[in-house]
């Protein structure tokens, strides 16, 4: 957190309003100490209703069996795995902001990292639900872990699906720990602001782990954050790499390709930043954080979206080129079929959302127009959901044997489950902005003097 008082004519202040330390505490923590407003209650009511609907859908399909889905013998993976890959991808932006931007000393991350990390954790929770119900018998979920058992069987360590188990659970654990460690100093502030003897005080005392702000502890704390960032950065790359290997290690045309790991990671960051924008554009407005999450932040994230969007576009082109260059008729067929076959509508939705729409963000006028950025961020997320759908369904629906060719349509239950996962995500996020410090207060205090004369 070097040089927080550097003054340069080229640098813009990170916090756009001149704030004193105490005012920063009040601006951010004051938000969660008061009573929530009506908008929050309405939003929570809607999202928890959607969550309840998803819960009922999941209960129904677990009771009845996954015959309630639109799968058939040819298309054995479709909606459920699409949603899983989509949600895991969303999470990646949070870790990128909290870990990789910390290692790169990008100071602008300070006021958005907490919310982005929260988003990561909730997205991974949503992702985790899908493989669980995909098992069909989720009460046997513990079978995926290697433990000595009366069945005298071990798991297959050569399967990417097992790698997924380790990758996702490590990712969730490390992200959650990193997130909590980041909040300890803010819990201490909340504790010291709470009334003596109140329940709030007790809860925040326990959560703050008796943090005092001792500089000997701060020194260790900063080293710990660097170590966790150093561990989380390769971890996040490994997670979507392993998810992509679920496909890449198979022999299905359109899946069996070495470009998948980098392509999936770029796509994950792309969709994740879009989701961060969707959430933060609303949060900064509702919580009056416009001076902390500034237009500079929005623009910086838009630029990441342009970059990763182009990487995704390059990957689409490379896939096509490789299919043609390989001379493999199955591979060629799959790609031509994606663009011109029965799922062409999904393919072209994906291309227009992911390859074309990010280029609007080259224009400063659009980047600084919140409504436009908000709409584009949703468009990108729709595109990235369709990317996963296209990869999974179009590769499967034309089997090697034309007699097995089939089509896939999601059932109501599957759509309700997808909507339910959004319900879970937004419910968690709404609870987060009410009960936990949405912005890292301690870290923001180190940058309020940045690029500002005393």
């Amino acid at each position, binding site marked *: *957190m*070097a*040089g*927080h008082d550097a003054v340069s004519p080229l640098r813009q202040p990170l916090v756009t309003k001149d704030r*004193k*330390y*105490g005012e920063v*505490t009040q601006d951010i923590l004051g938000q969660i100490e008061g009573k929530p407003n009506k908008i929050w209650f309405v939003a929570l009511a809607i999202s928890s209703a959607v969550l309840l609907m998803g819960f009922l859908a999941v209960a129904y399909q677990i009771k009845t069996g996954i015959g309630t889905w639109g799968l058939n013998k040819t298309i054995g993976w479709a909606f459920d795995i699409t949603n899983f890959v989509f949600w895991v991808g969303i999470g990646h932006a949070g870790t990128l902001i909290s870990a990789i931007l910390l290692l790169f000393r990008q100071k602008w991350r300070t006021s958005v990292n907490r919310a982005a990390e929260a988003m990561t954790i909730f997205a991974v929770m949503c992702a985790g639900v899908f493989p669980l119900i995909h098992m069909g018998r989720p009460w046997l979920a513990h079978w995926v872990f*290697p433990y000595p058992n009366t069945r005298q069987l*071990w798991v*297959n*360590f*050569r399967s*990417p699906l*097992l*790698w997924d188990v*380790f*990758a996702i659970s*490590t990712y969730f*654990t*490390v992200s959650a*720990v990193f997130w909590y*460690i980041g909040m*300890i*100093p803010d819990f*201490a*502030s909340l*504790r*010291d602001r709470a009334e003596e003897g109140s329940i709030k005080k007790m809860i925040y*005392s*326990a*959560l*703050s*782990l*008796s*943090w*005092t*702000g*001792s*500089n*000997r*502890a*701060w*020194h*260790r*704390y*900063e*080293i*710990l954050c660097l*170590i*966790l960032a150093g*561990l*989380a950065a390769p971890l996040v790359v*490994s997670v979507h790499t*392993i998810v992509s*290997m679920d496909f890449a290690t198979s022999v299905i045309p359109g899946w069996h390709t070495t470009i998948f790991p980098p392509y999936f990671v770029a796509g994950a960051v792309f969709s994740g930043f879009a989701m961060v924008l969707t959430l933060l554009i609303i949060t900064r407005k509702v919580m009056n954080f416009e001076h902390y999450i500034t237009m500079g932040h929005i623009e910086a994230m838009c630029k990441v979206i342009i970059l990763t969007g182009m990487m995704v576009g390059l990957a689409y082109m490379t896939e096509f080129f490789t299919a043609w260059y390989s001379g493999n008729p199955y591979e060629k067929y799959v790609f031509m079929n994606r663009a011109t076959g029965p799922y062409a509508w999904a393919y072209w939705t994906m291309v227009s959302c992911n390859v074309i729409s990010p280029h609007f963000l080259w224009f400063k006028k659009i980047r600084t127009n919140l409504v436009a950025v908000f709409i584009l961020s949703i468009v990108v997320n729709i595109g990235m959901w369709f990317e996963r759908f296209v990869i999974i369904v179009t590769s499967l629906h034309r089997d090697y044997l034309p007699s097995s060719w089939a089509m896939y349509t999601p059932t109501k239950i599957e759509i309700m489950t997808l909507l339910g996962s959004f319900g879970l995500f937004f419910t968690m996020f709404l609870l987060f902005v009410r009960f936990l410090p949405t912005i890292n207060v*301690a*870290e923001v*205090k*180190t940058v309020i003097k940045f690029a500002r004369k005393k």
Partner: protein
Amino acid sequence: MDVKDKRFLLGIFDDDHDIMAAVGHLRESQVEVFDCYTPFPIHGMDDAMGIKRSRLPIVTFFAGLAGVSLALGVQYWISAVDWPVNVGGKSFNSFPAFIPVAFELTVLFGALFTVLAFILRSKLCPITKPAIAHKRQTDDKFVLAIEAKDAALNEEMIRGILSKHHASEIHFSEGSTW
């Protein structure tokens, strides 16, 4: 080193630059600074206070080593010794396929044990009452603490240095506040 049993001379500051300058000045004058309590980490304070670099990375290294060894050992034992299963004609000790799990466990062990070491070393605990010198030290006040026995050696000079660097309050800690 339980702070609650000790008495301290406290200097309360309103600005991070002032407290850091005071720490530097005190240490130049051979006064031992016990600790500083600040709402956020102050850049350069480690050097000013002469804090030795933390050894947490060593914990991470050995925890990671334990994670990778455990993961590779267990995978080898399960797949090649305890119950070898022929999967697609691959060798029982299919080492490359063991790398992803080994990597994940390296990261998991490294992260969890480093956090544990940090919590133990910093004596963080959910049920202890924190030693708070000033109610706003986690908000906008910066507290410099000198042990009373060190302060007694040259109290006048120390008070002088603290006020020279704009300390807003200088007083001895009461037993009850800590």
